[in-house]
Protein backbone atom coordinates (compact mmCIF):
# COMPACT_ATOMS: atom_id res chain seq x y z
CA UNK A 1 0.00 0.00 0.00
CA UNK A 2 1.46 3.31 -0.92
CA UNK A 3 -0.48 5.92 0.92
CA UNK A 4 2.13 8.58 1.05
CA UNK A 5 1.10 9.97 -2.29
CA UNK A 6 -2.21 10.95 -0.81
CA UNK A 7 -2.63 14.56 0.17
CA UNK A 8 -5.43 13.63 2.56
CA UNK A 9 -3.14 11.69 4.83
CA UNK A 10 -0.56 14.41 4.68
CA UNK A 11 -3.20 16.91 5.72
CA UNK A 12 -4.26 14.68 8.60
CA UNK A 13 -0.70 14.36 9.78
CA UNK A 14 -0.05 18.04 9.48
CA UNK A 15 -3.17 18.93 11.42
CA UNK A 16 -1.92 16.65 14.22
CA UNK A 17 1.41 18.40 14.08
CA UNK A 18 -0.05 21.86 14.20
CA UNK A 19 -2.44 20.97 16.96
CA UNK A 20 0.29 19.89 19.35
CA UNK A 21 2.76 22.67 18.75
CA UNK A 22 3.19 25.98 17.03
CA UNK A 23 5.57 25.22 14.25
CA UNK A 24 7.01 27.05 11.31
CA UNK A 25 5.54 25.68 8.12
CA UNK A 26 7.31 22.61 6.87
CA UNK A 27 7.99 23.15 3.23
CA UNK A 28 7.86 20.04 1.16
CA UNK A 29 8.03 21.48 -2.28
CA UNK A 30 11.16 23.50 -1.93
CA UNK A 31 13.81 23.09 -4.53
CA UNK A 32 12.27 20.11 -6.23
CA UNK A 33 13.17 19.35 -9.76
CA UNK A 34 10.56 19.55 -12.44
CA UNK A 35 9.15 16.23 -13.57
CA UNK A 36 11.46 13.89 -15.43
CA UNK A 37 9.50 11.15 -17.05
CA UNK A 38 12.21 9.46 -19.10
CA UNK A 39 13.39 6.20 -17.61
CA UNK A 40 17.10 6.97 -17.70
CA UNK A 41 18.59 10.43 -17.79
CA UNK A 42 22.01 11.73 -16.91
CA UNK A 43 22.30 12.59 -13.26
CA UNK A 44 21.76 16.31 -13.47
CA UNK A 45 23.45 17.27 -10.26
CA UNK A 46 26.10 14.78 -9.25
CA UNK A 47 27.30 16.79 -6.28
CA UNK A 48 23.72 16.93 -5.09
CA UNK A 49 23.37 13.19 -5.37
CA UNK A 50 26.68 12.56 -3.65
CA UNK A 51 25.12 13.92 -0.48
CA UNK A 52 22.41 11.28 -0.62
CA UNK A 53 24.63 8.64 0.89
CA UNK A 54 22.92 5.27 1.15
CA UNK A 55 24.49 4.56 4.52
CA UNK A 56 22.79 7.33 6.47
CA UNK A 57 20.90 6.51 9.62
CA UNK A 58 19.01 9.62 10.61
CA UNK A 59 15.62 9.89 8.93
CA UNK A 60 16.22 13.62 8.73
CA UNK A 61 18.75 13.10 5.98
CA UNK A 62 16.28 11.19 3.91
CA UNK A 63 16.38 13.29 0.82
CA UNK A 64 18.78 16.13 0.50
CA UNK A 65 16.61 18.17 -1.80
CA UNK A 66 13.87 18.18 0.82
CA UNK A 67 13.50 19.46 4.28
CA UNK A 68 12.59 16.73 6.74
CA UNK A 69 9.21 15.33 5.75
CA UNK A 70 7.42 13.73 8.72
CA UNK A 71 4.59 12.39 6.56
CA UNK A 72 6.91 10.46 4.26
CA UNK A 73 8.88 9.17 7.26
CA UNK A 74 5.68 7.99 8.93
CA UNK A 75 4.50 6.17 5.82
CA UNK A 76 7.90 4.62 5.35
CA UNK A 77 7.87 3.26 8.90
CA UNK A 78 4.38 1.77 8.81
CA UNK A 79 4.79 0.01 5.49
CA UNK A 80 5.78 -3.60 4.95
CA UNK A 81 9.49 -4.18 4.35
CA UNK A 82 11.80 -6.88 3.07
CA UNK A 83 14.11 -6.52 6.05
CA UNK A 84 13.40 -7.00 9.75
CA UNK A 85 14.75 -4.37 12.12
CA UNK A 86 15.44 -5.16 15.76
CA UNK A 87 16.55 -1.90 17.29
CA UNK A 88 19.03 -0.42 14.82
CA UNK A 89 19.98 -3.85 13.41
CA UNK A 90 18.62 -4.97 10.08
CA UNK A 91 18.09 -8.66 9.43
CA UNK A 92 17.65 -10.21 6.00
CA UNK A 93 14.40 -11.89 4.98
CA UNK A 94 13.64 -14.27 2.12
CA UNK A 95 12.51 -12.65 -1.13
CA UNK A 96 10.10 -14.45 -3.46
CA UNK A 97 9.66 -12.28 -6.50
CA UNK A 98 7.74 -13.05 -9.66
CA UNK A 99 8.37 -11.03 -12.79
CA UNK A 100 5.93 -11.49 -15.63
CA UNK A 101 7.74 -12.98 -18.62
CA UNK A 102 10.85 -13.77 -16.58
CA UNK A 103 9.71 -16.07 -13.82
CA UNK A 104 10.65 -16.46 -10.20
CA UNK A 105 13.57 -14.98 -8.30
CA UNK A 106 14.07 -16.54 -4.87
CA UNK A 107 16.93 -15.27 -2.74
CA UNK A 108 17.70 -13.70 0.61
CA UNK A 109 17.51 -9.93 0.88
CA UNK A 110 21.07 -10.01 2.29
CA UNK A 111 22.15 -10.16 -1.37
CA UNK A 112 21.33 -6.47 -1.64
CA UNK A 113 24.22 -5.70 0.69
CA UNK A 114 22.33 -3.33 2.97
CA UNK A 115 24.00 -2.00 6.12
CA UNK A 116 23.46 -3.79 9.41
CA UNK A 117 22.79 -0.38 10.91
CA UNK A 118 20.86 1.90 8.66
CA UNK A 119 17.83 2.63 6.69
CA UNK A 120 17.59 -0.36 4.41
CA UNK A 121 19.11 0.99 1.21
CA UNK A 122 20.93 -1.78 -0.63
CA UNK A 123 24.31 -1.17 -2.25
CA UNK A 124 23.96 -4.00 -4.76
CA UNK A 125 21.41 -4.64 -7.47
CA UNK A 126 20.56 -8.30 -8.00
CA UNK A 127 18.83 -9.47 -11.19
CA UNK A 128 17.56 -5.91 -11.75
CA UNK A 129 16.08 -5.80 -8.25
CA UNK A 130 17.22 -3.23 -5.69
CA UNK A 131 16.43 -2.59 -2.05
CA UNK A 132 15.30 0.96 -1.36
CA UNK A 133 14.08 2.04 2.08
CA UNK A 134 13.69 -1.60 3.05
CA UNK A 135 11.50 -2.44 0.08
CA UNK A 136 12.36 -4.44 -3.02
CA UNK A 137 11.98 -2.46 -6.24
CA UNK A 138 12.74 -3.35 -9.81
CA UNK A 139 14.59 -1.42 -12.48
CA UNK A 140 12.23 -0.85 -15.39
CA UNK A 141 14.93 -0.37 -18.03
CA UNK A 142 15.74 -3.69 -19.73
CA UNK A 143 19.29 -2.45 -20.49
CA UNK A 144 20.16 -2.53 -16.81
CA UNK A 145 22.60 -5.42 -16.27
CA UNK A 146 21.39 -8.64 -14.68
CA UNK A 147 23.20 -10.39 -11.85
CA UNK A 148 25.00 -8.62 -9.02
CA UNK A 149 25.90 -5.00 -9.81
CA UNK A 150 27.26 -2.30 -7.53
CA UNK A 151 24.94 0.71 -7.48
CA UNK A 152 25.69 4.21 -6.29
CA UNK A 153 22.61 5.62 -4.55
CA UNK A 154 18.94 6.49 -4.86
CA UNK A 155 17.18 9.72 -5.77
CA UNK A 156 13.61 10.85 -5.90
CA UNK A 157 11.96 12.94 -8.55
CA UNK A 158 8.56 14.41 -8.86
CA UNK A 159 6.36 13.15 -11.66
CA UNK A 160 2.71 13.30 -12.60
CA UNK A 161 0.71 10.09 -12.62
CA UNK A 162 -2.05 9.23 -15.06
CA UNK A 163 -4.61 10.89 -12.78
CA UNK A 164 -2.71 14.18 -13.06
CA UNK A 165 -1.54 14.02 -9.46
CA UNK A 166 2.01 14.86 -8.43
CA UNK A 167 3.82 11.81 -7.05
CA UNK A 168 7.38 11.05 -6.05
CA UNK A 169 9.14 8.48 -8.17
CA UNK A 170 12.28 6.67 -6.97
CA UNK A 171 15.35 6.33 -9.18
CA UNK A 172 18.52 4.31 -8.74
CA UNK A 173 21.85 5.82 -9.83
CA UNK A 174 24.18 3.39 -11.60
CA UNK A 175 27.28 4.59 -13.47
CA UNK A 176 26.05 8.21 -13.37
CA UNK A 177 22.77 7.30 -15.01
CA UNK A 178 19.41 7.32 -13.32
CA UNK A 179 17.09 4.36 -13.79
CA UNK A 180 13.38 4.47 -12.94
CA UNK A 181 12.28 1.99 -10.27
CA UNK A 182 9.03 0.04 -10.16
CA UNK A 183 7.39 -0.73 -6.86
CA UNK A 184 5.74 -4.08 -6.24
CA UNK A 185 2.28 -4.78 -7.63
CA UNK A 186 -0.63 -4.10 -5.34
CA UNK A 187 -4.16 -5.40 -5.72
CA UNK A 188 -5.85 -2.05 -5.16
CA UNK A 189 -6.50 -1.39 -8.85
CA UNK A 190 -4.85 2.02 -8.65
CA UNK A 191 -7.15 3.06 -5.82
CA UNK A 192 -4.35 3.96 -3.44
CA UNK A 193 -1.76 4.87 -6.04
CA UNK A 194 -0.69 1.27 -6.56
CA UNK A 195 -1.63 -1.20 -9.25
CA UNK A 196 0.00 -3.90 -11.31
CA UNK A 197 3.65 -3.16 -12.08
CA UNK A 198 6.37 -5.28 -13.68
CA UNK A 199 6.77 -7.65 -10.71
CA UNK A 200 4.90 -9.29 -7.85
CA UNK A 201 6.31 -9.58 -4.34
CA UNK A 202 5.38 -12.80 -2.54
CA UNK A 203 8.21 -12.43 -0.02
CA UNK A 204 8.00 -13.26 3.63
CA UNK A 205 8.28 -9.63 4.59
CA UNK A 206 8.28 -7.93 7.95
CA UNK A 207 4.51 -8.22 8.34
CA UNK A 208 4.29 -11.87 7.32
CA UNK A 209 7.11 -12.80 9.70
CA UNK A 210 5.44 -10.91 12.56
CA UNK A 211 2.20 -12.69 11.82
CA UNK A 212 3.96 -16.08 11.91
CA UNK A 213 5.66 -15.21 15.20
CA UNK A 214 2.34 -14.16 16.74
CA UNK A 215 0.58 -17.28 15.45
CA UNK A 216 3.29 -19.51 16.92
CA UNK A 217 3.15 -17.66 20.25
CA UNK A 218 -0.65 -17.90 20.40
CA UNK A 219 -0.60 -21.54 19.32
CA UNK A 220 1.98 -22.46 21.93
CA UNK A 221 0.09 -20.56 24.64
CA UNK A 222 -3.34 -22.00 23.87
CA UNK A 223 -2.15 -25.58 23.42
CA UNK A 224 -0.51 -25.33 26.84
CA UNK A 225 -3.68 -23.91 28.37
CA UNK A 226 -5.85 -26.56 26.73
CA UNK A 227 -3.55 -29.30 28.07
CA UNK A 228 -3.72 -27.79 31.53
CA UNK A 229 -7.53 -27.98 31.45
CA UNK A 230 -7.47 -31.52 30.10
CA UNK A 231 -4.97 -32.72 32.70
CA UNK A 232 -6.53 -31.02 35.72
CA UNK A 233 -10.28 -31.06 35.18
CA UNK A 234 -12.24 -29.24 37.83
CA UNK A 235 -9.15 -27.72 39.43
CA UNK A 236 -8.54 -24.00 39.92
CA UNK A 237 -6.71 -22.43 36.96
CA UNK A 238 -3.12 -21.45 37.48
CA UNK A 239 -0.43 -19.51 35.65
CA UNK A 240 -1.39 -18.16 32.26
CA UNK A 241 -4.82 -19.79 32.57
CA UNK A 242 -5.69 -17.04 35.03
CA UNK A 243 -5.02 -14.44 32.37
CA UNK A 244 -6.95 -16.06 29.54
CA UNK A 245 -9.92 -17.59 31.35
CA UNK A 246 -11.55 -14.28 32.40
CA UNK A 247 -11.17 -12.95 28.84
CA UNK A 248 -12.80 -16.02 27.34
CA UNK A 249 -15.61 -15.93 29.91
CA UNK A 250 -16.11 -12.22 29.25
CA UNK A 251 -16.33 -12.86 25.50
CA UNK A 252 -18.77 -15.72 26.08
CA UNK A 253 -21.08 -13.88 28.48
CA UNK A 254 -20.85 -10.33 27.10
CA UNK A 255 -20.33 -10.89 23.38
CA UNK A 256 -21.27 -14.32 22.07
CA UNK A 257 -24.36 -15.16 24.14
CA UNK A 258 -26.18 -11.79 24.04
CA UNK A 259 -25.34 -10.94 20.43
CA UNK A 260 -25.57 -14.30 18.65
CA UNK A 261 -28.21 -15.96 20.79
CA UNK A 262 -29.01 -19.65 20.75
CA UNK A 263 -26.37 -20.66 18.19
CA UNK A 264 -23.46 -18.97 19.97
CA UNK A 265 -21.53 -22.17 20.48
CA UNK A 266 -21.19 -22.73 16.74
CA UNK A 267 -19.45 -19.38 16.18
CA UNK A 268 -17.58 -19.02 19.46
CA UNK A 269 -14.30 -20.61 18.24
CA UNK A 270 -14.27 -18.20 15.29
CA UNK A 271 -14.88 -15.21 17.55
CA UNK A 272 -12.14 -16.27 19.96
CA UNK A 273 -9.68 -16.78 17.10
CA UNK A 274 -10.52 -13.34 15.71
CA UNK A 275 -10.16 -11.67 19.09
CA UNK A 276 -6.86 -13.22 20.10
CA UNK A 277 -5.36 -12.94 16.62
CA UNK A 278 -6.16 -9.23 16.41
CA UNK A 279 -5.19 -8.58 20.02
CA UNK A 280 -1.93 -10.49 19.63
CA UNK A 281 -0.97 -8.59 16.49
CA UNK A 282 -2.01 -5.24 17.98
CA UNK A 283 0.12 -5.84 21.04
CA UNK A 284 3.04 -7.24 19.04
CA UNK A 285 3.04 -4.05 16.97
CA UNK A 286 3.35 -2.10 20.22
CA UNK A 287 6.65 -3.68 21.23
CA UNK A 288 9.24 -0.94 20.71
CA UNK A 289 12.40 -1.62 18.69
CA UNK A 290 11.22 -5.08 17.68
CA UNK A 291 10.33 -4.86 14.03
CA UNK A 292 7.73 -2.19 14.61
CA UNK A 293 5.39 -4.30 12.56
CA UNK A 294 2.06 -2.85 11.59
CA UNK A 295 0.17 -6.01 10.65
CA UNK A 296 -3.35 -5.07 11.75
CA UNK A 297 -2.67 -1.65 10.21
CA UNK A 298 -2.34 -3.32 6.83
CA UNK A 299 -5.43 -3.26 4.63
CA UNK A 300 -4.74 -6.72 3.17
CA UNK A 301 -4.78 -8.33 6.61
CA UNK A 302 -7.90 -6.55 7.82
CA UNK A 303 -9.57 -7.27 4.49
CA UNK A 304 -9.08 -11.01 4.91
CA UNK A 305 -10.43 -10.85 8.47
CA UNK A 306 -13.47 -8.87 7.32
CA UNK A 307 -13.94 -11.23 4.38
CA UNK A 308 -14.09 -14.19 6.76
CA UNK A 309 -16.78 -12.43 8.76
CA UNK A 310 -18.64 -11.58 5.54
CA UNK A 311 -18.50 -15.14 4.19
CA UNK A 312 -19.65 -16.63 7.50
CA UNK A 313 -22.52 -14.13 7.73
CA UNK A 314 -23.58 -14.76 4.16
CA UNK A 315 -23.52 -18.57 4.21
CA UNK A 316 -25.20 -18.73 7.62
CA UNK A 317 -27.88 -16.16 6.81
CA UNK A 318 -31.32 -17.72 7.24
CA UNK A 319 -34.54 -17.04 5.39
CA UNK A 320 -35.57 -14.15 7.64
CA UNK A 321 -32.21 -12.42 7.24
CA UNK A 322 -32.49 -12.40 3.45
CA UNK A 323 -36.15 -11.52 3.58
CA UNK A 324 -35.34 -8.47 5.65
CA UNK A 325 -32.73 -7.42 3.14
CA UNK A 326 -34.56 -8.02 -0.10
CA UNK A 327 -38.16 -7.30 0.84
CA UNK A 328 -38.58 -5.92 4.34
CA UNK A 329 -41.85 -7.16 5.84
CA UNK A 330 -44.18 -4.80 7.62
CA UNK A 331 -43.42 -1.58 5.76
CA UNK A 332 -45.35 0.05 2.91
CA UNK A 333 -44.33 -0.88 -0.64
CA UNK A 334 -42.86 2.53 -1.51
CA UNK A 335 -40.60 2.36 1.54
CA UNK A 336 -39.45 -1.11 0.46
CA UNK A 337 -38.28 0.29 -2.87
CA UNK A 338 -36.04 2.75 -1.02
CA UNK A 339 -35.04 0.29 1.67
CA UNK A 340 -33.96 -2.64 -0.50
CA UNK A 341 -30.99 -0.93 -2.20
CA UNK A 342 -29.88 0.48 1.15
CA UNK A 343 -30.06 -2.94 2.78
CA UNK A 344 -28.19 -4.60 -0.08
CA UNK A 345 -25.49 -1.93 0.15
CA UNK A 346 -25.44 -2.51 3.90
CA UNK A 347 -24.45 -6.16 3.38
CA UNK A 348 -21.19 -4.97 1.81
CA UNK A 349 -20.68 -1.85 3.90
CA UNK A 350 -20.65 -3.87 7.13
CA UNK A 351 -17.46 -5.85 6.32
CA UNK A 352 -16.00 -2.76 4.63
CA UNK A 353 -16.26 -0.74 7.84
CA UNK A 354 -14.89 -3.69 9.83
CA UNK A 355 -11.87 -3.67 7.56
CA UNK A 356 -11.39 0.11 7.64
CA UNK A 357 -12.00 0.58 11.37
CA UNK A 358 -9.22 -1.75 12.47
CA UNK A 359 -6.86 -0.52 9.76
CA UNK A 360 -7.46 3.18 10.43
CA UNK A 361 -7.19 2.92 14.21
CA UNK A 362 -3.95 0.97 14.25
CA UNK A 363 -2.34 2.90 11.39
CA UNK A 364 -3.26 6.26 12.90
CA UNK A 365 -1.75 5.21 16.23
CA UNK A 366 1.50 4.07 14.67
CA UNK A 367 1.78 7.18 12.54
CA UNK A 368 1.11 9.51 15.46
CA UNK A 369 3.95 7.80 17.33
CA UNK A 370 6.33 8.27 14.39
CA UNK A 371 5.30 11.91 14.08
CA UNK A 372 5.94 12.48 17.79
CA UNK A 373 9.43 11.07 17.35
CA UNK A 374 9.78 13.23 14.22
CA UNK A 375 9.35 16.31 16.40
CA UNK A 376 12.98 15.86 17.44
CA UNK A 377 14.10 16.22 13.84
CA UNK A 378 11.69 19.04 13.09
CA UNK A 379 12.79 21.14 16.07
CA UNK A 380 16.44 20.18 15.71
CA UNK A 381 16.34 21.00 11.99
CA UNK A 382 17.79 17.56 11.18
CA UNK A 383 20.71 17.83 13.59
CA UNK A 384 21.71 21.45 12.95
CA UNK A 385 20.20 22.70 16.21
CA UNK A 386 21.33 20.34 18.96
CA UNK A 387 19.80 22.28 21.87
CA UNK A 388 16.35 22.34 20.35
CA UNK A 389 16.50 18.64 19.49
CA UNK A 390 17.52 17.82 23.08
CA UNK A 391 14.54 19.77 24.37
CA UNK A 392 12.26 18.18 21.82
CA UNK A 393 13.58 14.72 22.75
CA UNK A 394 12.23 15.10 26.27
CA UNK A 395 8.86 16.37 25.06
CA UNK A 396 8.71 13.76 22.34
CA UNK A 397 9.56 10.97 24.78
CA UNK A 398 6.78 11.99 27.15
CA UNK A 399 4.27 12.37 24.33
CA UNK A 400 5.28 8.98 22.91
CA UNK A 401 4.81 7.26 26.26
CA UNK A 402 1.39 8.88 26.57
CA UNK A 403 0.50 7.79 23.05
CA UNK A 404 1.70 4.24 23.67
CA UNK A 405 -0.52 4.02 26.75
CA UNK A 406 -3.48 5.10 24.63
CA UNK A 407 -2.47 2.62 21.92
CA UNK A 408 -2.45 -0.17 24.49
CA UNK A 409 -6.07 0.69 25.27
CA UNK A 410 -6.90 0.92 21.55
CA UNK A 411 -5.34 -2.52 20.96
CA UNK A 412 -7.86 -4.08 23.34
CA UNK A 413 -10.82 -1.93 22.27
CA UNK A 414 -10.33 -2.60 18.56
CA UNK A 415 -9.98 -6.35 19.07
CA UNK A 416 -13.14 -6.23 21.21
CA UNK A 417 -15.07 -4.05 18.73
CA UNK A 418 -14.15 -6.28 15.78
CA UNK A 419 -15.33 -9.36 17.69
CA UNK A 420 -18.45 -7.63 18.98
CA UNK A 421 -19.52 -6.39 15.55
CA UNK A 422 -18.81 -9.75 13.92
CA UNK A 423 -20.93 -11.38 16.63
CA UNK A 424 -23.76 -8.91 16.05
CA UNK A 425 -23.67 -9.48 12.28
CA UNK A 426 -23.67 -13.23 12.80
CA UNK A 427 -26.49 -12.82 15.30
CA UNK A 428 -28.55 -10.81 12.82
CA UNK A 429 -27.98 -13.47 10.16
CA UNK A 430 -28.96 -16.45 12.31
CA UNK A 431 -31.66 -14.87 14.47
CA UNK A 432 -34.95 -16.73 14.54
CA UNK A 433 -38.00 -14.81 13.53
CA UNK A 434 -39.97 -13.39 16.46
CA UNK A 435 -42.20 -10.66 15.10
CA UNK A 436 -42.32 -8.48 12.00
CA UNK A 437 -41.00 -5.30 13.62
CA UNK A 438 -37.79 -7.10 14.55
CA UNK A 439 -34.55 -5.12 14.52
CA UNK A 440 -32.99 -6.09 11.24
CA UNK A 441 -29.34 -5.13 11.21
Amino acid at each position, binding site marked *: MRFYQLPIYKSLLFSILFAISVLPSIGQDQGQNPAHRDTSSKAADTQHDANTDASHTAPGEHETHHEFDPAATAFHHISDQNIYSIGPFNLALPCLLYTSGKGWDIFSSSRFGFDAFGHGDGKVAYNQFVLHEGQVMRVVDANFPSGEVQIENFTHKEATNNKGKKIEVPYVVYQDREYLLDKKSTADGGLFGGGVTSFYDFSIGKNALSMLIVCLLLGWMFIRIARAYANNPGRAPKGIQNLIEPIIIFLRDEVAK*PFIGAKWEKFFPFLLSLFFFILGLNLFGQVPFFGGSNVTGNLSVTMVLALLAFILTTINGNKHYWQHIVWMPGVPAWVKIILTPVEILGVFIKPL*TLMLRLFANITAGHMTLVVFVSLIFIFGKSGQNVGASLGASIGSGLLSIFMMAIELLVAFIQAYVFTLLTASYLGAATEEHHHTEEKHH
Partner: protein
Amino acid sequence: MTGSIAAIGMGLAVIGAGIGVGNIGGKAMEAIARQPEAVGDIRANMILTAALVEGAALIALLLSYLAA
Protein backbone atom coordinates in the same frame (compact mmCIF):
# COMPACT_ATOMS: atom_id res chain seq x y z
CA MET B 1 1.66 20.90 0.59
CA THR B 2 -0.98 20.15 -1.96
CA GLY B 3 -4.42 20.45 -0.46
CA SER B 4 -7.53 18.70 -1.57
CA ILE B 5 -11.21 19.45 -1.33
CA ALA B 6 -11.64 15.79 -0.31
CA ALA B 7 -9.69 16.55 2.85
CA ILE B 8 -12.27 19.19 3.78
CA GLY B 9 -15.05 16.68 3.16
CA MET B 10 -13.29 14.16 5.36
CA GLY B 11 -12.98 16.79 8.07
CA LEU B 12 -16.70 17.57 7.90
CA ALA B 13 -17.54 13.88 8.17
CA VAL B 14 -15.29 13.60 11.22
CA ILE B 15 -17.10 16.54 12.83
CA GLY B 16 -20.39 14.70 12.35
CA ALA B 17 -19.05 11.43 13.71
CA GLY B 18 -17.45 13.29 16.61
CA ILE B 19 -20.76 14.86 17.59
CA GLY B 20 -22.42 11.45 17.28
CA VAL B 21 -19.86 9.55 19.35
CA GLY B 22 -19.83 12.39 21.89
CA ASN B 23 -23.59 12.16 22.30
CA ILE B 24 -23.43 8.40 22.68
CA GLY B 25 -20.71 8.63 25.31
CA GLY B 26 -22.48 11.40 27.21
CA LYS B 27 -25.80 9.63 27.28
CA ALA B 28 -24.12 6.38 28.31
CA MET B 29 -22.46 8.16 31.23
CA GLU B 30 -25.85 9.58 32.25
CA ALA B 31 -27.40 6.15 32.01
CA ILE B 32 -24.63 4.60 34.11
CA ALA B 33 -25.07 7.37 36.71
CA ARG B 34 -28.78 6.60 36.87
CA GLN B 35 -28.41 2.84 36.89
CA PRO B 36 -24.92 1.79 37.99
CA GLU B 37 -25.97 -1.87 38.14
CA ALA B 38 -26.56 -1.94 34.35
CA VAL B 39 -23.03 -0.77 33.56
CA GLY B 40 -22.10 -3.92 31.60
CA ASP B 41 -25.04 -3.77 29.21
CA ILE B 42 -24.70 -0.03 28.74
CA ARG B 43 -21.00 -0.25 27.99
CA ALA B 44 -21.40 -2.99 25.38
CA ASN B 45 -24.21 -1.15 23.63
CA MET B 46 -22.31 2.14 23.82
CA ILE B 47 -19.30 0.64 22.07
CA LEU B 48 -21.50 -1.05 19.48
CA THR B 49 -23.35 2.17 18.66
CA ALA B 50 -20.18 4.23 18.65
CA ALA B 51 -18.62 1.73 16.23
CA LEU B 52 -21.63 2.03 13.92
CA VAL B 53 -21.40 5.84 13.95
CA GLU B 54 -17.67 5.59 13.33
CA GLY B 55 -18.53 3.51 10.28
CA ALA B 56 -20.00 6.59 8.61
CA ALA B 57 -16.75 8.48 9.16
CA LEU B 58 -14.78 5.55 7.78
CA ILE B 59 -16.87 5.45 4.62
CA ALA B 60 -16.16 9.17 4.24
CA LEU B 61 -12.46 8.42 4.68
CA LEU B 62 -12.59 5.83 1.91
CA LEU B 63 -14.57 8.09 -0.40
CA SER B 64 -12.11 10.93 0.15
CA TYR B 65 -9.29 8.53 -0.83
CA LEU B 66 -11.17 7.81 -4.04
CA ALA B 67 -11.78 11.49 -4.72
CA ALA B 68 -8.28 12.67 -3.81
